[in-house]
Each structure stands twice: as C-alpha cells, then as structure tokens.
C-alpha cells in the first residue's frame, strides 16, 4: 500500500515503485480492497462469540468448517489454501471426518 509519507529515497526504490509489482491504481487501497471471506468486514468480534448460551466461548474451526473455509477465509492456518497452493485438496479428502488421514496439505509430499 502506498501512503503519502512513504517516498522512495534511492534509485532502486524509485525503480521498484515504478514497476508493476505495485500494479494498482493510486486510488486502490490494498487493505480495504482485499477479499474478506464469509463476512463483509474482518472483525475479530466474530470469534469471541458473545452468546450467553451454549455453544459458548471462542469460535474455533471444526471439522465441518474445513471444506467451506478453504477459500478466502478466516482460518488460513487451519484449512488448506484452495485458491493458490492446494487447489485439489478435496481429492485427498472428500469428507474430513472420514478421510482426514489422507491430508497432506501442510507438507507437500
């Protein structure tokens, strides 16, 4: 993200700024332009689960969140990244409760 305070101070930094790596128009904000998964804003209040009745305490991903959270999701460490790195994870594991032993998305074998 570019801000007005950040200015390139040497030749290499100026070259980097000019390149496509920043690829976006000036008015696009990376932080607010990112996909946020199943909610319209990224709000950690969602995880604290303020309900007074069962189920209480913080939300944690369960086996039943596994497949549905493999897209742009809140649980990037707990679920396979189906967008880029593990697009075919469902071939190893069609139902996580049954096939979890086949998963190798953390370390590619």
């Amino acid at each position: 993200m570019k801000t007005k305070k950040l200015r390139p101070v040497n030749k290499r930094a100026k070259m980097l700024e000019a390149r496509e790596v920043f690829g976006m128009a000036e008015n696009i904000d990376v932080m607010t332009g990112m996909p946020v998964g199943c909610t319209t804003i990224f709000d950690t209040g969602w995880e604290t689960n303020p309900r007074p009745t069962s189920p209480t305490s913080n939300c944690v991903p369960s086996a039943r969140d596994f497949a549905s959270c493999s897209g742009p999701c809140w649980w990037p460490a707990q679920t396979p990244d189906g967008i880029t790195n593990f697009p075919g994870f469902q071939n190893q594991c069609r139902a996580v409760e049954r096939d979890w032993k086949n998963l190798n998305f953390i370390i590619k074998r």
Partner: protein
Amino acid sequence: MRRTTLALMMVCVLLVAVTSCEQKEKEPEVTISPPAGKDYFYVPINNALHIIDGATDTIVKTIPYNDYIIGGTFSPDGRRYYANALHSIYVFDTTKQELVDTYRFSTELSKVLVGGFGVSEDNRSLYIISFIVKKKQNVPRLNVLPPQLVVFDIESKKIAKSFEIPYYFKPVFPIKNDPDHLILVGYDVCKFSLKTGKIEVIETLFNPKKGEKVRNCLPGMDAISPGDHGIVVYSYYEGEGINVSSGFLMIDRNKGQARLLPSKDLWLSETTILSPDKKYVYAVMDELIKIDAETGKTVNFVQLENGTCKGVATSSDGKKVYVGPSGPDISVYESETLKLIKVIPLEGDGGYAMHRVTL
C-alpha cells in the same frame, strides 16, 4: 344556496382525494403461491453434485466433477444450475440433470477468482465478481488488478462488459423488471448501474449513519429459488465486546430495496432464508433458529445435532427445512416444530451451497 352547493362540492372533492390516497397506500400485496411441481435440492459437495428428491428426501442423482464449489444459483427460469468453484463455473441442465458446460476463467498466467455471481432475469448473462492476479512468465512478480464486475454472455461465452469496482463485493442480485441495475453486497448494500458503472449506497453496514454502529454481515449463501418471493436474507451483527446485537438484512430483489430487521435475541448465524409465506426467517450455524419475520422475535430454536451447517433451504410448501451440507449430511426438519425428521448422508463435505428448484 350557492355557498351550500360550493361547500358540498368541496367535501366531495376532498372525499375523492382522500379515497384515492388510501387506495394508493393500500397497494395489493403480491401473493406468491408455491410453484406447482416437484422439489429438487441441488447440493454441491467435494467433487460431485447431489440432486435430492424433495418428496422422498433421497439422492436421485450424483453428477461428478473435480472441484470444490463455493456457491451456486439457478437461472430464473429454473432450467440451469450454475455452481461456482474458485476459478470456474459449472453449468448443469436441470431437466436432463447433467453437467452441460464448464466456464474456466483462469490460465497459468492469469488467476481469476470468482467471488460471487448472479444470473440476469432474461437468463442470458452472468454477472460475476472477479479478482484477477496476473503474473509474467519467468518473472517473480504479481500484478493485482482491482476487482472487476464482469457481464458474461452465456450464449457466446464471451465477456460483454466489465466494470472496475472499488472494493469487495460478493453477492450480486439482478433486480426484477430493472435490467439496468444490480444489487451488490459488500461493505455496504449498493445499487450498481450497468449503464454508467455508478454505485449508490442503499443500506449501510460498514459506513453506518450517524448514531448507528458498524455492522458485520455474513452473506454466506444466496438462498434463491426460481419463482420465489424474491427476498434474500442475510444475518448481521453490530456492536463490540459483550455489547453485541444481531439482526437480519432483507434484500428485496423485486423492488431493488434493502431493510434491516433487528433481532430481539442475539443469534450468530451464517446462512438465512425467508419462508415461502414470508412469515419466518430460518437461520443456521450451530443452531436452527426460527424468527418471526415481522417482529424479529425468536419463535423456536434447536441445536443442530450433527454440528455446524452453512446452508439452508425450505420445501416449496414451507413445511420442511433442509439444513446442511458443511459436513457429509443434510438434516431435514419439520418447520412447524423444528423436529428432526431425517438425516440424508452425502458422499463428501459441502459448503455454502444448497438450493431448491421446483419443476
């Protein structure tokens, strides 16, 4: 005598004016009768689409593919079911119950993420929210383009139009009788002009009005059935810490309007649907909750026996509620009592998609 006649005339004019105003206010409510026919539920799971017969609640067909589906919707005429994976859209014929086409948008050098999509009311176009990342061959650099709203012509399979959109939107809804506008849900609920590309906020979520709190909305599944009442419901919550309240965002696809229904109780739910008679909202995540659609009061709730679910659908007569398929099953509940009637086992895990068509 003249004065009396004049006074009488004025009274008559006033009466006519008042009556016409009352008539204007009391527009006849459009009643939706359930479409005659048989209910089928389309349930995409890992590597296959299950089709469930709503009369027997059994799987009547399984259509294989090799992908994970994140969303789906029927065409308004009910003839096609479009299911979107992260990088492509699968097309199913509902009369033949076959996979008839696949639209693949990504290449090795251009990754296109399909965020959400809708089908135009004339069944001829798809409106796709896409995120595009391009890379140059042998150069370890990515070019992240701004999100695009793409109008995809189904017949020619070509992009007819594309618009750069400023930030994240996921659900896209065409408005009935208004082919020039769409409703988009993102940080706020907006009306999008397909002629000018202009965006107009019609209900606030992230940028609330003065005195209101920021709302976080969960647009999980677009619970739309061909020929339904045209109202889509999403749950939202607002507030911080333990001072949180929840409610339901109701989007009217007939009029292109949105309104909020605050809930009397705090519920965190991921997917919601309005019953065919528009009297109740059914919401699911860890529970199945029945809410009065007028008052926001909780009518009944049960904890889901098989665990978290992210999809919900009703039968066309409103007598049954189908909950699933985050895990490898769908639970069928009686809508009146929320009593579990049946659990339908599936071949694999699903996600946010489960839709009914009545043929």
